[in-house]
């Protein structure tokens, strides 16, 4: 069982519904390519929906960080939606929870991008 991703556009935000395993190998590679592709298309706002992520390892966490900094460096924003307890705990332990902008309400997450865009 590896990672699956589905993309949806909501307003100016690309919402990525991730499910399965974000671990060293396939899962991480897929996530990296997906983010690269979106940036190539000029996407600025990315919301990663992690609700159905069953497993994330240290490499997966690293990949989230990498996605975050890559998007930020291009003047965009990457936010996280719907952390499972496990992912939440891992981000706490690794002190990354406050680095990311984490949401648990999709509409509010979307409008938080809009606000920034309007600023």
């Amino acid at each position, binding site marked *: 069982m590896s990672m699956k991703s589905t993309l949806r556009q909501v307003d100016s935000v690309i919402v990525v519904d991730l499910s399965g395993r974000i671990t060293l190998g396939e899962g991480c590679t897929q996530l990296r390519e997906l983010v690269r592709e979106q940036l190539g298309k000029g996407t600025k706002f990315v919301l990663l929906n992690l609700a159905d992520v069953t497993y994330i*390892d*240290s490499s997966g966490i690293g990949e989230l960080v990498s996605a975050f*900094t890559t998007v930020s460096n291009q003047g965009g924003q990457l936010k996280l939606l719907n952390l499972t307890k496990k992912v939440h705990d891992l981000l706490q332990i690794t002190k990354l929870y406050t680095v990311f902008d984490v949401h648990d309400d999709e509409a509010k997450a979307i409008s938080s991008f809009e606000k920034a865009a309007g600023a």
Partner: protein
Amino acid sequence: MTTESNIVEMTLESDLNRVEMVEEIARRVSATAGFDEDDQHKIEMAVHESVINAIWHGNKNDPSKQVWLRFQIFDDRLEIRVRDQGIGFDPSSVANPLKEENLLNVSGRGIFLIRTFMDEYRVKKLEGQGTEVTLVKRLNSNNSGQ
């Protein structure tokens, strides 16, 4: 047959596709050892990180090199050893991923997670060639991982 019991050993190719099997076995052995679901998951993650390190850093992804694992259930703890055929490393020289300047690093969180989830983490250079990592999780330990 040895005189020790409650041992599960594995010899694997350096193949990431074997990692999921190892995780499930780790979880099952942890359950048998008496750990609750929370701890089973922590042990599973620690084993995952250790095996990935053995394949990746130890064996440099060389499929002709092997990873050897050993779970032993004791009354008061689970002891796990992971061996690779690499040149080893000094865990004390690994950077602290919680330091401000390392926080946005892409890698370097594996050993930190293992240490957080387990009660002991030891690295030993083997005679001849290879590295052996030992993980210990005690039953009813207060190491809640948070």
